[in-house]
């Protein structure tokens, strides 16, 4: 591998996450990463194949509420680079490099999101001092942890070769498997903190019935959808004539139920306000009160 190939791929790895966070031009997608890595490595066919395969692997995996997700883009960059430089078969590069790297990279994504907490606290101090330039600087510096969280591992892996990548991946998957497993469990559980913080902000006491509704509807429907999927897959495997497609629970549908409830509450609130202004104003007071209360709670 040439030094300029390592350089370009490292810069691209740092850029792709910033692109995804900001303009989202889709240059951060695994399939685009395959094309770009393929051009850099002089093997577009391999790049497109690995990128396309990884794209299909993560199809429908969206970023929700700031949860970390499998980083198929970085996986594609490394798999393409090693497949074309070492002469690995693309299929082998996908299973031994792209997928393990993609799932390991979740930890570095978590790290970058952690690191930026530091800058958020610096901004708090800057606000006290009315230091506008520093507020903007400390905000923009957040780009550092983001870009480095992708660029450093890609650089190290490309510069020190596939053996290191394999050694680290193997080490995490064998000797300290408990740690890798635990971290991925933590990754799956961390959104809970975000939701709990959100609940401290929203007037949850006032709208508690809707919290229950949202939870129960989703948990029951997703159980049904998952079970039907499992059943369908099993039947399709047992009987070749059985055909049918089964999707997972569409969250937009749940959101629309919530929207309907909100619209009902809105029209009731409004008509109630028109005929009985006194009850409406006392009603809205409680809204404001509980809002304030929740926010103060969180500042503790």
């Amino acid at each position, binding site marked *: 591998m040439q030094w300029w190939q390592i350089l370009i791929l490292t810069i691209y790895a740092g850029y792709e996450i910033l692109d995804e966070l900001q303009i989202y031009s889709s240059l951060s997608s695994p399939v685009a990463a395959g094309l770009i890595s393929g051009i850099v490595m002089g093997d577009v066919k391999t790049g497109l194949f690995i990128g396309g395969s990884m794209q299909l692997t993560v199809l429908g995996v969206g970023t929700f509420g700031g949860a970390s997700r499998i980083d198929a883009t970085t996986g594609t960059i490394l798999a393409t680079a090693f497949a074309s430089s070492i002469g690995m078969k693309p299929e082998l590069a996908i299973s031994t490099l792209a997928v393990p790297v993609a799932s390991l990279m979740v930890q570095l994504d978590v790290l970058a999101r952690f690191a930026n907490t530091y800058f958020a606290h610096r901004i708090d101090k800057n606000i006290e001092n009315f230091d506008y330039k520093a507020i903007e600087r400390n905000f923009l510096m957040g780009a550092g942890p983001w870009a480095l969280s992708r660029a450093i591992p890609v650089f190290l892996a490309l510069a020190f070769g596939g053996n290191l990548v394999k050694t680290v991946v193997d080490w995490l998957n064998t000797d300290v498997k408990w740690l890798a497993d635990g971290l991925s469990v933590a990754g799956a559980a961390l959104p809970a903190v975000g939701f709990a913080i959100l609940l401290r902000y929203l*007037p949850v006491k006032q709208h508690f019935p809707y919290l229950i*509704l949202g939870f129960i509807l989703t948990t029951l429907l997703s159980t049904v959808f998952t079970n039907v999927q499992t059943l369908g897959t099993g039947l399709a495997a047992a009987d070749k004539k059985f055909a049918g497609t089964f999707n997972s629970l569409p969250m937009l549908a749940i959101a629309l139920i919530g929207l309907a409830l909100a619209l009902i509450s*809105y029209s009731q609130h409004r008509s109630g306000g028109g005929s009985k202004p006194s009850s*409406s104003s006392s009603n809205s007071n409680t809204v404001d009160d509980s809002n304030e209360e929740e926010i103060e709670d969180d500042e503790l």
Partner: protein
Amino acid sequence: MTNYKLTDADFKQINKRSLFGFQLGWNYERMQGSGYLYTILPQLRKIYGDGTPELKEMMKTHTQFFNTSNFFNTIITGIDLAIEEKDGIAGKDAVSGIKAGLMGPFAAIGDSIFASLVPAIFGALAATMARNNNPVGIFIWIIAQILIMVFRWVQLKFAYKQGVELVTTMQDQLNAITDAASLLGVFMVGAMVASMINIKIAYTPNIGGVATSIQNILDTILPGLVPAALVGFVYWILGKKGMTSTKAIWLVLILCVVLSALGIIGKAH
């Protein structure tokens, strides 16, 4: 208060900052909090004046926890600025309420459309073509994303105009809207708790020589009990004195590694 009125140059600046800088400061504690402040900081300075206590108060308000779809964030910004431009610091509670109430619904809609549906459709197209050694699908996807950027650019002014109308002619409806939006927010948190925390009890003790799945027993009571209990637990510890969200994150992280190493909990999917 300087009675400043936003101009097209302001909208352009906000849009530029939003499109190229909204999520750079994303962190676990406040998520897009500092990004929200960054996008409107020049306008806040114009509305409240440099060095005023009002400006400090509002800067603090706008660095608080905020997280929504980065495809819809300027809608909330537009409504927010319409209120602040008119009411100034007096609109603080309305602004906080609208931000907290609207971010959840917009996050849900934005994530399902722009972070899930669009990448799924164009990704499938591009990937299928790429595996046949054809990069055209990738360029089709890029064109689609450019159209989406245009959409992101125009929504700010639209929301601002609606926001002005909201605060001038529909002042009394504002409470109803805030209330309905926060209802939707609470509902969606319930839905997200049920769908996005993928952990389960992995512990299967031998009872009378039979491996018993604790998770199965819990599922017969109610699916999703583990995520609900976890959120309830974090909600509870966040109310404790001296507890910050960063501490809560570390606690959850360590707890998960330990419980997972002991074989008590595991990933659900």
